[in-house]
């Protein structure tokens, strides 16, 4: 569905992505993992066309996304931190998004209902707490049924009940044979929500396979343990090759 | 007032001494020419209403010509109408129209050559090349005439009242509009110009050269192409005149060029692009004049010296005073300046700090005229503020040391 072909991204002095190649397939759910500054958000933004790679191509359904914008119709995106026009109310924000996507779109208001956001339709964005903003972001991401969902730290800042609601929604979508890409620092969540993992470190992809495979390779049962072992192995290999 | 009474009296005297010849279509004498031929010195011609087309009428007898209800004397766009060469002639109450236009001859409605003691009174002039023209004459009186013309350009029109080489002339209460120069004086001395109204003339409302010891009072000059020009003259008195709305890139309320030993008192300069522009002039006293809403109230060229500006009111002018020199030898004192920002601690109605009427930007554009394109820009504003705070470039001695705190009221009897 999405093929990333040898993309590089350099900001001034910093190399954010280096020779990243990935094949993301429909029906799979990817956990995008890596320490802070490893290039996860840059990768997501590249897929969304918000960041333009220095070299390499990204194909969406075999079509290059450079100079294209219509493909974003097929992506539901939840940003890490949602900032919205301060003076707009929640209701207006949803109306606006519907308006922009076009009137004849199918609408999925499941999360709006579940989070009871319709009760706060008149509230202005500047009056919202961080958690409520996160709910709004999630509801917006799932407002338009799409074959691809990209969620950047979806559960950060949500209360436990809302987290569960969101997780259920994600799992539901996963069952609908969609492509999901989720970043999170909460590995237990990822274990529940995803089946494949992309591990990034210093702009490079160090692991890209199923979580089962990772557990198998590291001989661990829990994802967190497996990941820790994997990183240790990597560091060991690195130190050896340096000598 | 006394003069006004004397004139009709004189007229009656003249009429009573000579014979009276009526002229008109209903009378035996049909034309003015016939009447002049018939008449002898001291006679009076009474012209009855009608249109008289007689070409050029030459008058060389001492006659009084009186029009009844403004009979029309038509030059048919070809001729000069009256050419007078005789003393003691009076022309009263006629209407002159359509003189010829010529570039070599100064064709006029009334031309007077080498004659004395004439009166031209209460006549009307329409569409005349020159209106009233005097050359080499003395002791004449031009009074209550109305001159109107509407030419398109300067070359198609002569002056309204044109005097050349005359002495002891009096111009009173005439109205001149739409001529080249409203009133033109060249080599006219010891004369008086009072209560005239000159508006909308192509060039100058009053054009005045080599005319010493004249006086003009209470005249009004409005909206003339280039305002009023007084040049190469000494001993002029300009009192109580109004110079208004003489507006244009080369228009002046009053242009003084090479004038000496004169007085400019009690005049009003309002809404002129330049109130007074002076060049090569010295020993002129400017007192009790009002300068308001002019672009430049006074433009003083460096060639002027020993002039005195005292007790004048300056208000709402864009520039109060500009000069192109740094050494200034004129006296400026006790004037009221509305731009003055000083204070008066001892309440003697005189400001305690001197006022500098010349702004830095005013200086700059005198030296570099192109700099006007920065007019009213923020840069100029800051420049002037800076110079006001720390004067460095504007002439040091050009200042009013005792500026008045309140405008003078010149109309109050005192």
């Amino acid at each position, binding site marked *: 569905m999405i093929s990333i072909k040898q993309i590089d991204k350099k900001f001034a002095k910093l190399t954010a992505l280096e020779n990243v190649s990935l094949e993301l397939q429909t029906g799979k759910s990817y956990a995008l993992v890596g320490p802070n500054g490893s290039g996860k958000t840059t990768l997501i933004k590249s897929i969304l066309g918000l960041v333009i790679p220095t070299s390499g191509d990204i194909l969406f359904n075999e079509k290059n996304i450079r100079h294209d*914008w219509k493909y974003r119709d097929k992506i539901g995106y939840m940003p890490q931190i949602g900032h919205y026009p301060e*003076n707009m109310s929640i209701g207006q924000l949803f109306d606006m998004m519907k308006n922009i996507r076009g009137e004849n779109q199918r609408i999925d208001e499941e999360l709006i209902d579940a989070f009871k956001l319709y009760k706060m339709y008149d509230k202005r964005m500047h009056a919202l707490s961080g958690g409520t903003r996160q709910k709004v972001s999630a509801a917006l991401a799932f407002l338009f049924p799409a074959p691809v969902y990209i969620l950047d730290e979806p559960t950060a800042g949500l209360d436990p009940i809302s987290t569960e609601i969101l997780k259920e929604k994600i799992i539901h979508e996963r069952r609908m044979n969609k492509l999901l890409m989720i970043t999170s620092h909460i590995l237990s969540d990822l274990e529940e929500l995803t089946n494949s993992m992309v591990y990034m470190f210093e702009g490079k992809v160090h692991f890209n396979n199923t979580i089962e495979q990772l557990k198998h390779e590291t001989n661990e049962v829990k994802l967190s343990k497996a990941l820790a072992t994997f990183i240790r192995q990597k560091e060991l290999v690195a130190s050896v090759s340096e000598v | 007032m006394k003069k006004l009474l004397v004139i009709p009296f004189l007229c009656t005297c003249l009429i009573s001494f000579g014979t009276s010849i009526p002229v008109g279509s209903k009378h035996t004498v049909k034309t003015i020419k016939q009447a002049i031929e018939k008449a002898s010195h001291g006679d009076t011609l009474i012209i009855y209403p009608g249109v008289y087309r007689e070409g050029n009428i030459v008058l060389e007898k001492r006659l009084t010509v009186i029009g009844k209800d403004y009979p029309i004397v038509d030059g048919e766009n070809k001729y000069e109408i009256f050419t007078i060469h005789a003393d003691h002639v009076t022309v009263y109450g006629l209407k002159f129209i359509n003189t010829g236009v010529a570039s070599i001859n100064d064709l006029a409605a009334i031309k007077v050559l080498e004659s004395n003691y004439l009166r031209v009174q209460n006549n009307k002039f329409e569409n005349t090349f020159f209106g009233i023209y005097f050359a080499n004459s003395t002791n004449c009186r031009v009074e209550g005439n109305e001159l109107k013309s509407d030419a398109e350009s300067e070359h198609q029109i002569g002056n309204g009242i044109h005097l050349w080489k005359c002495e002891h002339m009096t111009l009173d209460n005439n109205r001149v509009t739409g001529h080249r120069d409203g009133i033109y004086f060249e080599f006219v001395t010891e004369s008086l110009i009072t209560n005239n109204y000159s508006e909308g003339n192509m060039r100058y409302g009053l054009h005045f050269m080599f005319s010493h010891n004249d006086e003009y009072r209470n005249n009004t000059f409005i909206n003339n192409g280039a305002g009023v020009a007084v040049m190469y003259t000494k001993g002029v008195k300009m009192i109580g005149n109004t110079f208004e709305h003489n507006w244009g890139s080369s228009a002046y309320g009053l242009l003084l060029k090479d004038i000496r030993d004169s007085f400019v008192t009690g005049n009003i300069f309002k809404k002129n692009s330049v109130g007074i522009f002076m060049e090569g002039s010295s020993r002129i006293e400017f007192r009790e004049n009002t300068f308001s809403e002019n672009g430049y109230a006074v433009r003083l060229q460096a060639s002027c010296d020993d002039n005195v500006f005292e007790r004048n009111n300056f208000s709402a002018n864009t520039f109060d005073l500009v000069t192109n020199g740094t050494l200034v030898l004129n006296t400026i004192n006790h004037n009221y300046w509305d731009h003055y920002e000083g204070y008066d601690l001892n309440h003697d109605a005189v400001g305690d700090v001197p006022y500098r009427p010349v702004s830095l930007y005013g200086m700059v554009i005198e030296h570099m005229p192109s700099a006007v394109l920065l007019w009213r*820009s923020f840069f100029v504003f800051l420049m002037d503020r800076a110079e006001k705070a720390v004067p460095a470039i504007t002439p040091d001695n050009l200042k009013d040391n005792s500026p008045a705190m309140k405008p003078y009221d010149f109309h109050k009897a005192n």
Partner: protein
Amino acid sequence: MTRVLKYILYDILRTRFILLYTAFLFISTFGLYQLDSDSGKVVLSLLNIVLMVVPLVSIVFSTIHFFNSYEFIELMLAQPVKRSTVFLGEFMGVACSLCAAFVTGVGVPMLLFGINANALTMLYTGVTLTLVFVSLAFLSSVLTRDKAKAIGIALLFWLYFSLIYDGLLLWVVYSFSDYPLEKITLVLIAFNPVDLARIIMLLQLDISALMGFTGAFYQEFFGSYLGIVLSTLVLFIWIVLPIALAQRIFNRKDL
């Protein structure tokens, strides 16, 4: 485009600043009319506001607004919307609301006290300068990612066109004062929209008589059909060029 624009406009018009700006213009204009009944003089006093305050407010407000809407722009760009649509939508939104504030704040008192050619020219130059400086603000906004830096660039633009350029112009006039400069200065004026607006306004106010030969020359030029077309065109270029350049940069920019 209109869909995006609608919501951007809605957002900006609600901000307190636009209301304050409108009120400021309204009170100033109204006050000036109260102080002086001669509309020519009022317009002349307003000229200072139009030449100084309007560009300053336009450029600073637009830059700040752009950065405050940064995440919103990001959100929009994650939707199936063209970059240029979002960017031009933002531009139009800011430009329209600032113009509306200006026209309301200055125009309503003018309507109350009698509108004339002077007043209309003033509205025209004010709106044009607003557009030019919003355009420049968007350019300074895409030149850097840092809000403070962008505001710095914006202020520099303003300072340059309001002050520094005129200083340089005076220097040119001084250096070449022995030559006929009218045509050259006319070209130089075109390089500064503030100067161009000021000259158009001064000529409209019939005070060109005070500007001597230069004024007469300009009057003749700007009074001619060609002059009107050219000056309008130049101002139009001043609006279009910065925003077009900004758009180009924005299209390649990483968010």
